[in-house]
């Protein structure tokens, strides 16, 4: 019977190790570029459709509903929480020292929203509709990424 000949020493069982090479660059695009460059100057940019008046955030170069051009408008960056979740594990499922709060924030004066971190607030004190404002990195440390906004905090 062949099963008597089974390999019982696990070190004799072979395995194959491999690595998948993957490298990517994702550019922000025309409107995204405008947004991040304005963020370096402490400004929040949204895009308003010239025809229907819809205000897009993050900004777009054209309106998704009637394909017309948009113009950039400045908004305050403050907003209210639409939804939130509390993460107690990191991406490798290791417990976090301090829970992280992720929220979808409806920005004032726009029809759009942003997904970002909340801080300077306890998880149990967060509620839907809470007013928040952004906290930015030091001006010379900003590099044109979404992490230039450190987190949002209650006003």
């Amino acid at each position, binding site marked *: 019977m062949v099963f008597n000949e089974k390999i019982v020493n696990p070190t004799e069982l*072979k395995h194959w190790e491999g*690595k*998948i090479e993957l*490298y*990517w660059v*994702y*550019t922000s695009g025309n409107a995204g570029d405008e947004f991040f460059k304005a963020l370096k100057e402490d400004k929040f940019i949204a895009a308003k459709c010239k025809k229907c008046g819809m205000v897009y955030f993050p900004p777009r170069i*054209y309106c998704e509903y009637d394909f017309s051009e948009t113009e950039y408008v400045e908004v305050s960056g403050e907003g209210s929480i639409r939804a939130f979740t509390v993460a107690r594990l990191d991406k490798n499922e290791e417990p976090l020292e301090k829970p992280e709060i992720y929220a979808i924030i409806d920005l004032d004066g726009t029809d759009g929203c942003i997904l970002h971190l909340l801080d300077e607030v306890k998880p149990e004190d967060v509620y839907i509709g809470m007013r928040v404002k952004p906290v930015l990195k030091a001006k010379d440390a900003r590099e*044109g990424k979404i992490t230039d906004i450190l987190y949002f905090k209650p006003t």
Partner: protein
Amino acid sequence: MSVGKKDITCPPEAIGTPVKDSDLKEGKVTYVEDHPDIRYAWTAGQAISRFLKELKNGKLIATKCNSCRRVMFPPRMFCELCFKPIDDWVYVQDTGTVQTFSISYIDPDAKPLPEPIIVAVIAVDGASPKMGIMHILDEVKPEDVYIGMKVKAVWKDEEEREGAITDIKYWKPVG
């Protein structure tokens, strides 16, 4: 949303904004980049572990099912037709027949190769018909390969073998 004719102000062909490599390096445009570390380990299992061990000895091994009398190559522990454990291990020859082949002019990164490589499925002699492995052919021009061509394995030197499928360097035509 209504469907039909619309007053579209955008040109029918929107012109993109070209970005040069230098624009990224000089920080003219904003971007994010990542190089994720994706690793995997594939366990060979009982049958393939034995197969790889035999490759080190310069031999090809298959398994046999006494119900359907098939000699299965590459070896496996269960007969997938009879749903029963295999009955025996048998050695097969290092010669075979080309079942199908493909000529590749690019490497896995889609870069052009200086010489094309020929990838083929080879049914080995001694195993049941159409039982075979995928490997590369050499010492033959791409235009001379045909289905049904008899080939033979070219092995690495004994001291260089490590129990991997690459212990066979390539297969070459017989005669």
